[in-house]
């Protein structure tokens, strides 16, 4: 786990305490670099951060092109798990890696709270 301001750790705690969440990280949206992370063993944080940043950026452009404004939350569903992301106003993405049957509504709320903490 990388060293990070206490606020970052608090933000990640909000997310990882939700049952079914395997890990959480804060990612710089601009360059896809890990800012802070709390991930389970074996998850390649740097690579996930880069891809999450890229998906967020492309999705953001698609939303803007569709006239739907800036992206607030996105949820990638897969056979064996899910990736959930909320953007903080500072340009940091709060990312959760979760089990497939996780309570998406609850994770979304905690991600939004974490984004407020991150600022």
């Amino acid at each position, binding site marked *: 786990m990388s060293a990070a301001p206490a606020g970052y750790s608090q933000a990640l705690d909000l997310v990882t305490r939700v049952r079914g969440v395997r890990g959480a990280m804060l990612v710089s949206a601009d360059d896809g670099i890990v800012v802070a992370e709390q991930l389970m063993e074996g*998850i*390649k944080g740097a*690579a*996930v951060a880069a*891809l*999450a940043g*890229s*998906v967020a950026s*492309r*999705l953001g*452009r*698609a*939303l803007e*092109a*569709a*006239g*739907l*404004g*800036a*992206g*607030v*939350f*996105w*949820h*990638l*569903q*897969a*056979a*064996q*798990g*899910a*990736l959930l992301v909320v953007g903080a106003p500072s340009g940091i993405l709060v990312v959760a*890696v979760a089990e497939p049957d996780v309570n998406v509504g609850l994770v979304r709320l905690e991600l939004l709270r974490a984004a407020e903490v991150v600022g």
Partner: protein
Amino acid sequence: MADDVKALSSQLAQDPDSLVFLRLGELLRRKRQLDAAHRVALTGLERHPHLADAHDLYARILADKRDYERAFDEWDMARRIAPDHVGALKGLAFLYFKVGDVQQAAVHLEAAQRVAPDDPGIAQALSLARGGSGGAAGDEAGSRAAAAEQALAPASPGAALEPIDDTQVFVGLEGAQEGLLLLDASGRVLGGALKNPEGRDVTDAVAAYLAGVSQEAARTAKLLGLGAWSALAAEGKQGHVHLTALAGDVLLLVVRDRSVPMGRLAVIAQRAAGAARRWLEQQR
């Protein structure tokens, strides 16, 4: 036309919640199969009680059956749901002509003309109504009203319905031409269309961006050991999108404004995915 009835009936059987009943009901009405049209319209109304078009269709069928009282109620209901519904306004004007109330007919025609200024039927009927309500002799006023009534009458049996476009993937589904899109992994559009909240076509731009999104989504899911990705839902400040990965790298996109919750969007996407899969099978 028989084939059209068969095709539409088949589509409706596969997806009973589809709005294709509107076309099927109208087609049957024009073929003068009024009992069948009546059944289709009623079943559609049971599933879509708040759809003005469904009440309008039912009213036209009732008018054909000369059940003018109930037709009035249905057009009135359509207008309550959608005050600017041109079909309902024209239908009500038609019925007012029938009972000789030219003034009320003109009021409804004026409202219809404000919504559809280029509709020649409305313009013609309105002109006849105005000419006929100025104290003309009885016979003349009567013949003008009859002509106006004819101009407004629901389309005659022989009139052709717009041909069914087999290339339309989402025919009958809500938002088929502004909120549903089928594209391949390279961002090429296979069907459907997208419009932004201002009504501008944004199909190509959104398709191009989303092709990249799906590639990144697949890489991310693989890297995380999550298996194949099935869907990507995103919430924007003014609306939501739901991207579904269909077989063969085909993507389905559903877009709705924020009044449609994300969970409901997933249900709409599931329904549209069924239509898209059937269409893809037909193309192969």
